[in-house]
């Protein structure tokens, strides 16, 4: 076993103001490899806004996000991070395989090959199928397959369990546990209670 690198994602004193309404302020957290950060809160409490700040899409109105001690814009952060948001980010006119090839080209190749990732997310025989023919749950699993084929250590997931059935949820939980066991970290929002084995879960309640 080689020693796994440790990463550290920190947010210090973050605040977010939207339409003159303070969603959260003075929010700090620290997350290291192998941990999960679960954001909880009512609809509109700023969960997605916080995730988008962590993705670098939004500037926090105060505070700073740090990656291994450096501000995220000056660091290797974007090469280490993968995001699956509300939108699946797949093109419905392309096949499953074509979509994953584009994702792979945009990142660095990761732990699994495309075929292995498709086996992992139970989409093995769908590689030549156009995405518009997939069900909502299959699309979701496809967008999560993207996490497996690219090299990354932080997963930022916005409601990853939406439109997945029980097996799908269990499958994603397994993948998440594996990712943490391999030294990755995950920030997610979820309405479901997550069941992860041997993983430290931090919770932040935004409401």
């Amino acid at each position, binding site marked *: 076993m080689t020693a796994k690198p440790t990463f550290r994602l920190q947010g210090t004193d973050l605040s977010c103001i939207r339409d003159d309404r303070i969603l959260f302020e003075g929010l700090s957290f620290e997350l290291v490899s192998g941990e999960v950060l679960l954001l909880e809160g009512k609809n509109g409490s700023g969960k997605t806004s916080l995730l988008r700040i962590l993705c670098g*899409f939004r500037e926090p109105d105060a505070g700073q996000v740090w990656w291994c001690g450096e501000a995220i814009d000056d660091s290797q952060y974007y*090469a280490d991070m993968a*995001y699956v948001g509300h939108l*699946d980010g797949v*093109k419905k006119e392309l096949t499953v395989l074509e979509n994953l090839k584009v994702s792979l*080209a945009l*990142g660095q190749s990761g732990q699994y090959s495309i075929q292995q990732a498709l086996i992992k997310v139970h989409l093995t025989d769908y590689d030549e199928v156009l995405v518009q023919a997939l069900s909502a749950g299959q699309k979701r699993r496809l967008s999560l397959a993207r996490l497996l084929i690219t090299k990354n250590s932080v997963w930022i997931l916005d409601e990853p369990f939406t439109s997945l059935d029980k097996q799908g949820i269990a499958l994603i939980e397994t993948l998440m546990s594996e990712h943490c066991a391999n030294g990755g970290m995950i920030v997610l929002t979820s309405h479901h209670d997550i069941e992860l084995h041997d993983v430290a879960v931090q919770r932040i309640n935004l409401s």
Partner: protein
Amino acid sequence: MSLSHAFFAIIRRDLVLALRRRSEIANPLLFFILVITLFPLGIGAQPHLLQAIAPGIIWVSALLAAMLSLDSLFRSDFDDGSLEQILLSSHPASILVLGKIIAHWLVTGLPLLIVAPLLAIFLGMPTHSLGILLLTLLLGTPVLSLIGAIGVALTVGLRRGGMILSLLVLPLYVPVLIFASNAVEIAGTGLPVDAQINILISILFMSLVLAPWPTAAALKMSIN
């Protein structure tokens, strides 16, 4: 994967998408052909007048056809979240965006070049100016895509950005229109047009270098 790999993957992806949604190619091309064929009908049997204004007709139609096609540049990527993924890539967003613009030009600009000589003959343009017409289109239409991309990137987050887009982009198209149609007109009289062509070349290189950055920055703002 390397940057060039990502760049070509984006171009290939957009070309495949365009082939699967053919109306995207057909729409601006059809518009271009329709507008030009309607002019002789509207003007009537005045071949000399038509011949005199032919460069202008072709260029104005090309410009409007390019405008018409602009919205499709980032719209679907914005709607389905692919744009977020492109911008999150560790590769420079401006290069990836340039890939998208090139693919967009190949799909919407290049077809205009192919039909333009036919339409020029149809309008009675002298055959010796056809070469210059093609050259101006070859140099000018990529500029339309490049400059237009900045405007689309700024307005893609707005639900009704169409009007603002035209107001933003049309003034910037004017220099291309002036030099390009002037070059074709002068070429018809047999005079040299090196100056106009050189200016178009410099506009092309300038926008090739300068347009992708603001486009990428504006896209980042739009997905916020």
